């Protein structure tokens, strides 16, 4: 069973359908009690950091997230769900985030006119550290990205994969113990994205 946290940050249909297509049962919830009972937690989302943090607080699910992560439950952040795991974000004039990964979230600065913001499309992920969720995924595989802000992880040991865009190399995958997070959308990344979700579904949270 995969528990998807619904904190009103975008559309969860594609995440749900992707897990169902690999044979997983899915529960979508905004209730702290159900998150605390989750066996595998997915923290997805698109949209702005400030509104997302506000929603987490008003739904009172921030503590539940911290608790399951501390308890060793496998936890996957996707897109804004990855960004919120860092300490802060430049978005919305500066937003304090959850702070379970070291570093901050910054806006792409494009010096080159031909470099469009947001980054939208398929880009490669260079795997810099093996991780169970990347099992049987080739290095330099392409994943689908849509984002204007990127995670800047301040401790190298937590970086799993890197991607380059707008003259910046950023952590497109990061993890710490049972916590793993990706900036791209595995649910929109075809067969290889489904492979990552399948790996996560089987993962016991140990590296």
């Amino acid at each position, binding site marked *: 069973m995969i528990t998807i946290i619904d904190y009103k940050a975008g559309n969860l249909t594609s995440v749900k359908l992707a897990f169902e*297509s690999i044979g997983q049962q899915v529960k979508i919830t905004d209730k702290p009690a159900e998150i605390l009972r989750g066996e595998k937690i997915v923290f997805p989302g698109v949209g702005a950091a400030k509104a997302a943090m506000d929603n987490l607080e008003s739904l009172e699910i921030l503590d539940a997230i911290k608790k399951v992560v501390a308890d060793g439950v496998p936890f996957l952040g996707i897109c804004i769900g990855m960004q919120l795991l860092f300490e802060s974000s430049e978005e919305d004039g500066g937003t304090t985030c959850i702070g379970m990964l070291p570093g901050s979230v910054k806006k792409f600065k494009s010096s080159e006119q031909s470099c469009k913001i947001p980054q*939208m499309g398929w880009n490669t992920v260079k795997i810099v550290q093996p991780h169970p969720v990347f099992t049987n995924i080739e290095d330099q595989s392409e994943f689908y990205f849509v984002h204007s802000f990127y995670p800047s992880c301040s401790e190298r040991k937590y970086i799993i994969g890197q991607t380059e865009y707008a003259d910046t190399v950023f952590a497109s995958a990061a993890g710490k113990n049972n916590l793993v997070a990706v900036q791209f959308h595995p649910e929109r990344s075809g067969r290889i994205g489904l492979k990552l979700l399948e790996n996560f579904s089987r993962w016991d949270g140990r590296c």
Partner: protein
Amino acid sequence: MLTKRIIPCLDVRNRKVTKGVKFQNNIDLGDPVEMAVAYSDGGCDELVFYDITASAEQRPIDIEMVREVAKAVHIPFAVGGGIRNLEDMRKVLLAGAEKVSVNSLAVRNPNIISEGAKQFGAQCIVLGMDPVKVEKSDKFPSGYEITTQGFRTRTGFDALQWAKHAEELGAGEIVVNSVDADGTQAGFEINLTKMISENVGIPVVASGGGGTYQHLIDVFTAGKADAAIIASMIHTGKFTIKQIKDELITAGIAIRKRW
């Protein structure tokens, strides 16, 4: 490196994929869900579905089809044609589409772009435009006028001004579908694509006229397109997506290689 996207376009009428030239003489090609799966497995990077008669027949978009596609393929896809309001956008996105494309609706009511972007995020609002070549003038400084309903209606909008305005309103992407080139397989309209792409900060998708490898190479290099929509060249079976991608990779274009 961010790769250039190859996007098959599926024009749908009565649950069948269809293809015409300059929006006329359409023939049925197959089932949209089966074709989506085949193209996704074949390596396309995204898909776009246009419900081509929904708008003219004033009926809502086929949501059930959107749901079936979302279950069957796990790459991004956009849906357009027959979007009438925010509620239609919501239905299409909740059914599993990544993006929703507005064209004539945005011409009638440009605020739908900003309202959609605010509600659902700019990344899922695509502006589709059908420009036709006209004499350059004060009214049409770019030399292209926006049409709707497949060339049938002239809008009086200049193509470049409309593209910039749509970006300001919050569109996440612009599909530039050249009426003059549509279905001809004689090449994309490079100057038009380049002009729009160089003057907006959001991705631009070229559409209309792709028929050969060289056309795609040209639109990605000289045309500065971020993505290209193709239809005839693959629907006829003349090329596979793999063949197209291999040629583009050989030509040095950044293309997704693994799927």
